[in-house]
């Protein structure tokens, strides 16, 4: 008799499975979790801490916080940060002071580990929630983070 009870139990479990998928079929409109990505660009917002790419914020006067201490360059495991720096005489104090010429960031080599931002003593670089990083030319992934003509904000010690 177990032959027939096997058949009965088998069919019952199959129908149970079908009830799960059937339930979702009926509620298909409400349950859909698809993100229709390029259409929802306006509403799509990343979380604050999202690691998209490293940027260097500048204030309205085109000043930034980077002293050129190279902590980020040392901290980076992949060598994706290069800082070209120079020493310049500070006009107010008259002392020679380190000054960045170019803060080069290779996005193509970055693994988004966040060690550079941890290492930065002046919070000069931060994460930007930009996730659309695809480009047609690889060379555009090498970015210069400090804007042309920018300079370090006064009073940021190195």
């Amino acid at each position, binding site marked *: 008799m177990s032959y027939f009870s096997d058949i009965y*139990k*088998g069919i019952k*479990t*199959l129908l*149970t*499975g079908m*009830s*799960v*998928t059937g339930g*979702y079929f009926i509620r298909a409109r409400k349950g859909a*979790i698809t993100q229709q990505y390029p259409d929802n660009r306006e509403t799509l917002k*990343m*979380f*604050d*801490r*999202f*690691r998209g790419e490293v940027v260097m914020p500048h204030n309205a006067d085109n000043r930034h916080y980077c002293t050129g201490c190279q*902590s980020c360059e040392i*901290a980076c*495991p992949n060598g994706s940060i290069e800082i070209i720096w120079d020493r310049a005489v500070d006009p107010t104090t008259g002392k020679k002071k380190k000054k960045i010429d170019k803060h080069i960031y290779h996005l193509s080599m970055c*693994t*988004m*580990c*966040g*060690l550079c931002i*941890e*290492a930065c003593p002046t919070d000069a670089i931060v*994460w930007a929630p930009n996730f659309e990083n695809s480009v047609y030319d690889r060379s555009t992934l090498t970015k210069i983070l400090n804007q042309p003509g920018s300079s370090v904000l006064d009073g940021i010690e190195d």
Partner: protein
Amino acid sequence: MTDQQLQNKIKTEEYFINMGPQHPAAHGVLRLILTIDGEIIKNVEPDLGYIHRSIEKMCERDSYQQIVHLTDRMDYLSSHINNEAVCLAVEKGLEIEVSDRVKVIRTIIDELTRIASHCLWWGVMGMDLGALTSYFYAFRDREMINDIFEETCGARLTMNYNVPGGLMFDIHPNFVKRTKDFIAQFKTKIPEYNRLLTDNVIFHKRTKGVGILTREDAISFGVSGPTARASGFSSDVRKHHPYSAYDRVDFKEILFTEGDTFARYQVRMMELWESISIIEQLIDNIPEGEIKAATKAVIKLPKGEFYQRVETARGELGVYINSAGNKNPYRVKFRSPGFSNLSVLNHISKDVLIGDLVATMASFDFVIPDIDR
């Protein structure tokens, strides 16, 4: 004609078949060279290295902080647990005691990682057996965990949230609420998983008695994690060598004795409940404390050898650090669970059908970067 003559006359020929490196059941780039007689598998020979990145060699040139983010890329489904293993080994070397807050947060995220990993495994297991819908249901729930990770750690998969001495930054204010929401919702979903797949008669037929691994073989082959526990080998590192906050939570080690594919399936399904219970015990009272112990900018481990074992979603991960006293390690070895688990595949896949091999592989839950490192 005698039987022997007849058998010689109708003798079949064995042939080779390449399963992978590009194959839907390979879950990546695992290449299995199968020797097959008809549809019956005679030998399984894994060929690895298709995504070997030599993480162990890279570790030898990096500083201790930098090693951590490499381990994200090993078993990417338990990246937080991998990070933690390295950090615990380094903390062992530095003799730092991290605060309770760090321990508890690490444990909660470990368990969330485990749930996320098991979710993915469940979906893929169904998919390998031909029930494609399970994949989407599992990913819907996994998405919530990924959101939690993204909000707190900044990344969904390769989180790199641990640093030697603690955590990179404190949890997000929404973390507790989101986790509770997830737990509440996920509790209603597991019975649904069971109704869809676990109770299904075809699923039973496909998995019961397939790929039986005995306890002795499991120990001898160094199998660990849910795969070993399905064979009755009590291998849970969280129980035997507790780390972080596992010594203060109450949870069961799921043990089965059948050792077949269905037992491995059940162990993981029941571990979901255990993970939920661990999170529930900890989430309401995360103690206050330092988020990061003070470490020097350049960490130098004393001369010696440091070994840390943790339980990832796939099994026991061991981190062996041999330090010569420099700022980078002399030798780092990752004892990855997948590598040892893979070695037993040939042993238990003799004289089974191709479909059985696929089911067995699905229940082992291989992550290929974990095997290749």
